[in-house]
């Protein structure tokens, strides 16, 4: 399945109406095909209006909004604490990354100190989250290109990560584990051993996936030279994450704008040169190995730090431990105040950007001094990355459209939020 490389440098992003309008006199008749919103290879409720000339894609218009949940708006009517549970539900493949971005923004508003144990645990868990998110990407990407085994193997390892999340937070996916000021609960005693067991096997398992795909001629045929997103266009569209790094630009917020002490961890930012579907595959595979490396360091750091506070001791931000409220009136009042009214950050705004599995995830919060945010905006990588899709798809075959959509790894909950 080879296709002509794109010669065009058409950066326009068509709307569905541009494609569905009747052909004008003298224009070539093309076929309009609706892919989605319910199509397994659009990875969610994404509708792609595809203009075809035979099998060749002439133009694509991504039509989003089918999963609009109004999360940003709902947050305006909830306290900061309650809004947190909704961040899990934007990018549902990386809830902890969303939790992290949101709590970092609120903590910046409040200007509060986070105990080192909580920060190390956060790093460890979001890196596990990155691996689990990339495993879903890998599995579904391979499944789209008819490689079934990788999907099953990837989900097996992901299950282990979700089990770790269940161990620490009580939920496999909608964790809500990071709270403003630290963590919701302390890490359980069996945590280090469980994570270590996973870290011991993961590198071997990634080797296995690579055995199946990396040099497989069928895989190369379907991915090499397909959906090229060059560096210039990637920057023009604001694409971040593996899509940008596969185009040869080393831009990773963990290195370039470190948060959560990422500058004290030893890891590399994998990049590639061609910006095609295969390179995005290579970059994500290498990222998983790097994440495992960070996890090992964070686990060691947790071990070195030993037991300690996992949440800030500022009673105006985090509720006191339950054991305290049965005998201390002051604690009881703080407890009631925080769970009913919540805390009140000072007037102002805060912007925090982190590197989520899909790219640059940012939260912007405006506070008017009340216990509820005045405005929350999330800059979600999937939404921005999707803009590059028409550019990447023009000139390739329909089957390639499936491959390159998967390689951008959009999560529709995050696109529409």
């Amino acid at each position: 399945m080879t296709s002509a490389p794109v010669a065009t440098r058409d950066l326009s992003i068509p709307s569905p109406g541009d494609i569905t309008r009747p052909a004008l006199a003298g224009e070539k008749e093309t076929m309009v095909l609706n892919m989605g919103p319910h199509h397994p290879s659009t990875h969610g409720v994404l509708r792609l209006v595809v203009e075809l000339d035979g099998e060749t894609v002439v133009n694509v218009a991504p039509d989003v909004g089918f999963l609009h949940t109004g999360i940003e708006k709902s947050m305006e009517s909830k306290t900061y604490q309650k809004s947190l549970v909704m961040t899990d539900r934007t990018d549902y493949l990386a809830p902890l990354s969303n939790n992290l971005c949101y709590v970092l923004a609120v903590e910046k508003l409040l200007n509060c100190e986070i105990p080192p144990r909580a920060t190390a645990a956060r790093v460890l868990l979001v890196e596990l989250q990155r691996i689990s998110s990339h495993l879903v990407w890998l599995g579904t990407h391979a499944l789209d290109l008819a490689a079934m085994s990788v999907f099953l193997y990837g989900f097996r390892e992901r299950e282990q990560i979700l089990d770790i999340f269940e161990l620490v937070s009580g939920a496999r996916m909608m964790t809500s584990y990071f709270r403003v000021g630290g963590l919701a609960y302390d890490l359980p005693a069996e945590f280090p051993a469980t994570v270590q067991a996973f870290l011991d096997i993961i590198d071997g398992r990634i080797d296995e996936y690579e055995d199946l795909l990396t040099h497989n001629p069928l895989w190369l045929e379907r991915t090499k030279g397909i959906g090229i997103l060059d560096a210039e266009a990637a920057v023009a569209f604001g694409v971040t994450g593996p899509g940008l790094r596969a185009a040869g630009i080393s831009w990773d917020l963990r290195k370039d704008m470190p948060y959560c002490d990422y500058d004290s961890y030893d890891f590399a930012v994998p990049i590639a040169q061609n910006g095609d579907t295969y390179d995005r595959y290579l970059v994500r595979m290498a990222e998983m190995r790097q994440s495992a490396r960070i996890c090992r360091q964070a686990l060691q750091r947790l071990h070195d730090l030993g037991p300690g506070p996992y949440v800030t001791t500022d009673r105006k931000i985090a509720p006191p431990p339950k054991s305290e409220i049965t005998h201390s009136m002051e604690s009881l009042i703080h407890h009631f105040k925080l769970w009913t009214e919540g805390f009140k950050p000072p007037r102002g705004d805060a912007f925090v950007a982190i590197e989520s599995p899909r790219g640059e995830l940012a939260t912007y919060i405006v506070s008017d001094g009340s216990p509820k945010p005045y405005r929350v905006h999330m800059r979600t990588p999937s939404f921005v990355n999707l803009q590059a899709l028409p550019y990447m798809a023009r000139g390739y075959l329909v089957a390639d459209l499936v491959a390159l959509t998967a390689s951008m790894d959009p999560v529709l909950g995050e696109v529409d939020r």
Partner: protein
Amino acid sequence: MLGEIFKGLRTTLRYLFRQPVTVEYPEIKRPVRERFRGRHELKRFGNGMERCIGCSLCAAACPSDAILVVPAENNLQQPNSPGERYAARYEINMLRCIFCGYCEDACPTNAIVLEHQYELAFYDRKSSIYTKEMLLVPAEQGHGDIPPVLQQLDRRPSPPAQIDL
């Protein structure tokens, strides 16, 4: 080129002779972790009294407004719970609930606890509302002692706390 395909096939072939990692639900159920957040239960103290004191803090903490608490004064001769009030009605709408565990975190007496039951399915919306009778554990399953602060029923009302919140 063919070699690479055989390398992949060798990997899949090896799996043919391994134990499967999947389990056959519902015959076999995967155990959940200690902290798993499933269906709620209303707990009791060791002496069988209801832990819930009808403070409605869980309802206030719930992000999805899933909880309804209607408190009532305890009959002092035959109290349902230690303290002044108890929950006359306690309902959780399981269709609204997102199992975040905030109610459990907020409850001052550890009355509402998310337990390990996760098979929650119903045919109509009405049966998604779990009433107090469904949530309350049997009297013999109580645990723990009543904290001292709930035992002083005849104390004088305390002055408002002078704490800057």
